[in-house]
């Protein structure tokens, strides 16, 4: 249990997936203009990333390794993730229209979110067990959500600030992300 907590806290604060591993930068910079959409995206990613990591772990362990075809990892994983996202979208639409309204727009975007495939591959590379995979992907997903929500909060305030013309939009967002990343470096000595 303690080991799992260490993995989760490490993934959220120390090795934050966006701010120190640079996975999932596109949604981080693209869907962070409004706090409400950032929360929607964060929840959708948390949901898909955790399920996708567990399923890809099972696929690797019971199909790819058993058949000796580990070299098909990339293709197999991206197919699993793409169809999983479709499946989740269908289930949510059928079972809970409210949730679908809130998350629907973000779900298709997640297929090409490199955080999902990245975490799935990293779990295999670090040869985690099933429970460690669960902890690591949940931690990474929560870290993504935390960074996204904090960043969206800052960007909402930045909208009202007087920013030089050439820095408006993407450049100021990147520099803000740099400052957040420096702040997260402070967690390095935590564990």
């Amino acid at each position, binding site marked *: 249990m303690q080991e799992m907590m260490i993995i989760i806290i490490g993934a959220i604060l120390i090795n934050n997936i966006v701010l120190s591993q640079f*996975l*999932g930068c596109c949604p981080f910079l693209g869907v962070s203009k409004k706090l409400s959409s950032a929360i929607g995206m964060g929840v959708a990613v948390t949901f898909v990333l955790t399920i996708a990591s567990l399923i890809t772990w099972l696929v690797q362990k019971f199909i790819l390794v058993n058949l000796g075809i580990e070299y098909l990892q990339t293709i197999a994983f991206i197919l699993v993730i793409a169809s999983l996202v479709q499946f989740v979208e269908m289930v949510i639409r059928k079972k809970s229209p409210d949730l679908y309204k809130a998350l629907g727009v973000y779900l298709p975007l997640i297929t090409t979110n490199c955080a999902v495939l990245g975490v799935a591959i990293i779990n295999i590379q670090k040869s985690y067990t099933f429970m460690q995979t669960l902890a690591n992907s949940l931690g990474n997903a929560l870290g993504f959500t935390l960074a996204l929500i904090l960043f969206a909060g800052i960007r909402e305030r930045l909208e009202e600030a007087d920013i030089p013309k050439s820095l408006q939009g993407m450049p100021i967002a990147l520099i803000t992300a740099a400052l957040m990343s420096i702040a997260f470096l402070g967690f390095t000595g935590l564990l």
Partner: protein
Amino acid sequence: MSLGKEFTKGIFSENPLFRLTLGLCPSLAITTSVNNGIGMGVAFTGVLLASNIAISAMRKIIPDSIRIPSYIVIIATFVSMVEMLMHAYTPELFTSLGVFIPLIVVNCIILGRAEAFANKNGILPSIMDALGMGIGYTLALVVISAFREVLGAGTFMGYAVFSGSAPSALIMILPPGGFITLGCILAFLNKMQNVKVAKKAKLNQSIAQQQLSSN
């Protein structure tokens, strides 16, 4: 549209990284040294070229409704091939790029080019498009990594730049450095663009005034 224009648009007017800000993740993560930047750029260009050729050649066979999954499978196949080639021939680069080689699959530029260009155009224009975009992306990666490596480690492609013991700014090769460098480069390009637009507006104004006074 001429082939030359397809080639140069990817390098300048539609540079995937600096103009369209696509493919950010690898450009921030692996640009800690120029060697990594070039390696990533070459791998990326190879995959883009192969997938553009394959998709353009099969554009009439692939049914419209399942085109996105088909593109992803085609791209993933070429990425796996590049991954194996790099593992065999450049093991050092393979370890330093790490997880970002398989992640070329989800690079939005490649799927974007397939969807926006290769499925509408013939093989030859698609080759030029892929080469232009690939070289444009590689150049962008080299520019970012040059700034980061020179300022952060005091070297360029592994060779020392400064004589003596100049202090290096470690922050530039740590994660924040990636965000800072790209942010400053984009701001600089915006500034250039603004100056150009302002100059053009001024020129138009003075021409209009001249015409007015001559009338």
